[in-house]
C-alpha cells in the first residue's frame, strides 16, 4: 500500500502567501482531483511535490519518508505538464523511452515497454513520428505514455485536457479515466473544470485562497457543498438567505417561498436561525395556478437544446436561474415549483 502525504505546505509568491498550509493524502489506486481557479496555486503544489520548486514550510512524505532530501530525479514521481513539454528534438519513440533510458534499462526492455506504452494510449505505429507534427490529442497521449512508461510511483497531471477542444476533451477524459484506474498508483489530477473533476476523481479537493476548503468524494462535495464559494464553483447559481420556520421536516422560509430542505450534517439548528440555502439542481417546472409555487417575473429565457435557461426575479428583486421545458417571455409572470431543485442549507 503506497501513500503520498502532503503536510502543511506553505508557499509564498512575490511576497504574498500562495499556499497557506495544504495537507492531504493520496493512496494506491486513488485519483485525487485538485480543483481550483487558475492562479490558485494548484500547479505550484504539484511542482513542490515533484521537487521542482521549493516551499517555505511543510513536508512531502512518501510512505512516511520525508522527500525533502530526495532530488527530483530520484523521487520516481511522474508529472505531465499542461502543454505536455514533449522534447521537440526527439521523436515519439525517444520521448517515451527517455525515462526508461535514464533508469539504465536494457535496450530490449526499453523497446518492449515503449511499444506497450504506445499501445496503451492507442498510438501504436507512431513511434518514428516527429512530435511537432502530431495533433493536440496525439501529443497529449504521447505525454501520458512518456509519464507512465518508467512506471512512476505516483502520477501527477497538470490540466491534461485544458489545451484540447471540447469534443476531443470528452473522448480523452474517458480514456484517461481508464488509464488512471488501470495504473494502480496514486494520482493527483489538477483541473479548473468541475465536470472533469467530478468525472475523474475518486476524491476532490477544492483549493481556494491557498487553502483546501473542502475534500471528499465527488458525491459528497456536490451534494453537501460546505461554503457558498464551493457551491458557486461547482456551478450552482441559486444561493439565497432564508429563515428556519420548522425543524421537522426542516423548512426554511425564503424569498421564493417555503422550502423543505435536507440537513445531512445534523447541525444544531433552531427555529428563527437565518441560513443560506442552495439549490443543487436547476430543474424546475411551471406549476398551475392552483398548486403552491413561487411567483417569478421572467427576465430572459434562452434556448439551450433540451431546456430553456430562464432567469427570473421575485418581488424583492432576488434572481433565480432555472431550467424550464417551455419558452417564456420577458416580463411574463410565471409560477414555478421548486420541489425538484434539491434545496440544501449551507453553513
Amino acid at each position, binding site marked *: 500500500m503506497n501513500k503520498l502525504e502532503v503536510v502543511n505546505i506553505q508557499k509564498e509568491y512575490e511576497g504574498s502567501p500562495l499556499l497557506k498550509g495544504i495537507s492531504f493524502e493520496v493512496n494506491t489506486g486513488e485519483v485525487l482531483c485538485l480543483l481550483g481557479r487558475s492562479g490558485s496555486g494548484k500547479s505550484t503544489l504539484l*511542482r513542490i511535490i*515533484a521537487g*521542482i520548486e521549493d516551499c517555505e514550510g511543510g513536508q512531502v512524505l512518501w510512505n512516511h519518508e520525508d522527500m525533502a532530501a530526495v*532530488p*527530483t*530525479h*530520484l523521487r*520516481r*514521481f*511522474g*508529472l505531465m*505538464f499542461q*502543454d505536455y*513539454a514533449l*522534447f*521537440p*528534438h526527439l521523436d515519439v519513440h525517444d520521448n517515451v523511452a*527517455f*525515462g526508461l533510458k*535514464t*533508469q539504465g534499462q536494457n535496450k530490449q526492455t526499453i523497446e518492449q515497454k515503449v511499444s506497450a506504452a504506445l499501445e496503451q494510449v492507442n498510438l501504436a505505429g507512431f513511434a518514428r513520428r516527429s512530435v*511537432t507534427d502530431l495533433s493536440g490529442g496525439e501529443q497529449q497521449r504521447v505525454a501520458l505514455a*512518456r*509519464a507512465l512508461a*518508467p512506471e512512476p510511483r505516483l502520477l501527477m497531471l497538470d490540466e491534461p485536457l485544458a489545451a484540447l477542444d471540447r469534443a476531443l476533451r470528452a473522448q480523452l477524459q474517458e480514456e484517461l479515466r481508464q488509464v488512471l484506474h488501470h495504473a494502480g498508483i496514486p494520482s493527483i489530477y489538477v483541473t479548473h473544470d468541475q465536470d472533469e473533476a467530478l468525472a475523474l476523481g475518486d476524491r476532490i479537493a477544492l483549493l481556494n485562497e491557498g487553502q483546501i476548503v473542502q475534500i471528499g468524494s465527488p458525491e459528497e462535495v456536490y451534494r453537501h457543498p460546505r461554503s457558498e464559494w464551493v457551491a458557486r464553483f461547482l456551478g450552482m447559481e441559486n444561493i439565497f438567505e432564508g429563515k428556519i420556520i420548522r425543524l421537522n421536516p426542516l423548512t426554511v422560509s425564503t424569498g421564493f417561498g417555503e422550502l423543505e430542505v435536507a440537513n445531512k450534517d445534523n447541525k444544531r439548528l433552531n427555529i428563527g436561525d437565518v441560513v443560506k440555502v442552495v439549490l443543487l439542481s436547476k430543474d424546475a417546472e411551471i406549476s398551475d395556478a392552483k398548486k403552491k409555487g413561487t411567483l417569478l417575473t421572467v427576465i430572459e429565457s434562452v434556448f439551450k437544446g433540451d431546456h430553456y435557461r430562464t432567469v427570473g426575479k421575485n418581488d424583492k428583486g432576488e434572481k433565480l436561474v432555472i431550467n424550464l421545458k417551455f419558452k417564456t417571455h420577458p416580463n411574463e409572470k410565471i409560477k414555478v415549483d421548486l420541489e425538484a431543485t434539491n434545496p440544501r442549507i449551507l453553513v
Partner: protein
Amino acid sequence: MSANGKSGRLGRTLLWLIPLAFLAAFFFLPLGKILATAARSALENELGLSSFKQALSPLWFTTWQAALSTVLTLLLGLPSAYLYSHYRFRGKRLMRTLTTLPFILPTVVAVAGFTALLGPRGLLNLGLMKLFGLDQPPIMFMNTLWGILLVHVFYNTTIVLRVVGSAWSQLDPRWEQTARMLGASKRQALREVTLPLLRPSILAATLLVFLFDFTSFGVILMVGGPYFSTLEVAIYQQTMSLFNLPLAGILAVVQLLCTFVITWIYSKINGIRRVPLMPRLEGEILRQARSLKEKVALCGMNSLLALLLVAPMLALVLRSFLRLAADQGNRGSFTPGFTLQYYTQLFVNSNQSIFYVPPVSAALNSLLFALLTVVFSLVLGTLTVYAIFHNQRSQRWLDVLITLPLGASAVTLGLGFVITFNRAPLNVRHFPLLIPIAHALVATPFVVRSLQPALNSIPTSLRQAASVLGASPVNVWRKVDRPLLRRPMLVAAIFAFTISLGEFGATSFLARPETPTLPVAIYRYISMPGELNYGQALAMSTLLLVLCGLSIYLLEKLQPEGMNEI
C-alpha cells in the same frame, strides 16, 4: 495596393532601381574588378600557383587564430549566457549596457584602450616598472598572439552572451523539468535536453564569432604588428606597401570564398526550424541567486566581464591625461603627472605631424563623412524597405543583395575601390566622397534591419483609413508612415553614424594623407614613437569613445520598452 497609374509604377520601379544601381556601381563592379584582376594574373601565370602558395600561410594563420579565439570566446560566453538568462541581479541593466559597447566600439579605440592598459606604455606596465624599478616593461602585449586573442574575446563575448543567452531565456523550463521528472540528473538533463535544444543558437553564435575573428583586420594589424598576418592584413600590405595588386586580388578571392562558405553554413543553421514553445510567463526562469555557490559564480563572472569590458576603456581615458616626465639621469624612471597637453596639441599643425593638417581636422572629416553616410544609407535603406514592402516577392533577392557587402570584408571593399576607381572623375585620390559611399554600403543593411520591422508593423488598415478619409498617397505617407517611422529612422541614423565614425578597414585604403578620418589618424599616431604622438592617439580615441558612448546612450533611450531582457 491598388495601382495608381503609370507614375505609381514608375515610382515603384525607381524604389528598387536606385539601390540596385548603387550596389552595381559601388559593390559588384569593384568585386568584379578584383575577380578579373585575380583571374588575369592567375591565367598569365606571372603569379599563378606561387601566389596561391603565398596565400596559404596567412590563410592557415587566419583560420587557427580564429578557431582559437572562438573557443576562448565560448569559454567565457556560454557560462555568462547561462547566468544572464537564469538570474536576476543588481546592476544587470548596467552590465547589459556595458556589453553593448563592443558592438559599437571602433577597432582602433578598443586597441588603443588595450595598449593604454597593457601596452609597453600602458598603465599596468608603467605601474609595475615604477614599483619594482624595472627599465623594461614586464608585460608583453603588443606583437603577441595572446594580445590578439584577448581583444577578440573582448569583441565577441557579447555575441555569445546575446545569441545563446536570449535563446536560453526563451527555452521552456518545463523541458528540463520533465527530464528531471523522468529520472535525469541535472547533468543528464543538460546533456540530453537543454544542449540539444540550444544547439542551433550555439552553432550560430560560434560561426558568427568565427566569421568576425576570421575577417578581423584592425586588431591584427595594430596588435599583431609585423609578426602576424591574416588574409586581411596581407591584402592591405600587398596593396598599400608593396603595390602588388594582382596578389592582393588573389588573396581577396581566397578571403571571399572563405567568408562565403562560412556565411552559407551560417544561413543554413539559421534556417533550422526553431523550437516553437515559449515560457508562459515573461521572465519565468529568472531567479535570485540564493546559495553561496550561485553568488560566487555570478559575482565572479560579472567581475570578469566588467574587468574585460571596462578596464581597457578606463585605462584609455586615464592614460590620455597622464604626463610622463623622465627623471634625469635615470633611464626608465619617470614621474607621472596630469596633463591636457595631448588634447590641446590636437589643434596644432606641428611639423612632427605625419599629416599636413592638425589632428582635429581628422575629427571634422570623420563627422562630415559620418553625416554623409547617414544621408546615403537612410535614402538607400528607405528606398529598399519600401521596394520590398510594395513587392514582397522582391524581398528574397533585394534583401540578400543589400546585405552582401557585410559578407565581403571591408578590406576587400577597399581594395575593390582602389582597383576600380583609378581614373577621373572617380579617383580615390581626388574623390573623397568614396569614403562615405563605402561606409554607406556597410551601414545600409543595418538601416534596412531597423526600418523593416517598423514598416511591417504598421497595420494596412491605418493607411486604408487615411485613404478613405481623403488623403492622397503622398499625404498617407506623411500622416501615417512618417510619424510612425520617426523613431526607427533615428535609431538607423545613429547606427549609420556610429558605423561610419569607427570604420577602419575600407577607410584605411581610401583616406588620403590630407583627409584622414579619426580611426586612420589614431592608427598612424599609435604606431609612431614619441610620447606626444601616443598621447594624441589616446586623446583622439577618448573622443571617439565618448561619441560612441553617446550613441549607445541614445540607442538605449530609443529602444522600445520590453526589449531589455538579457
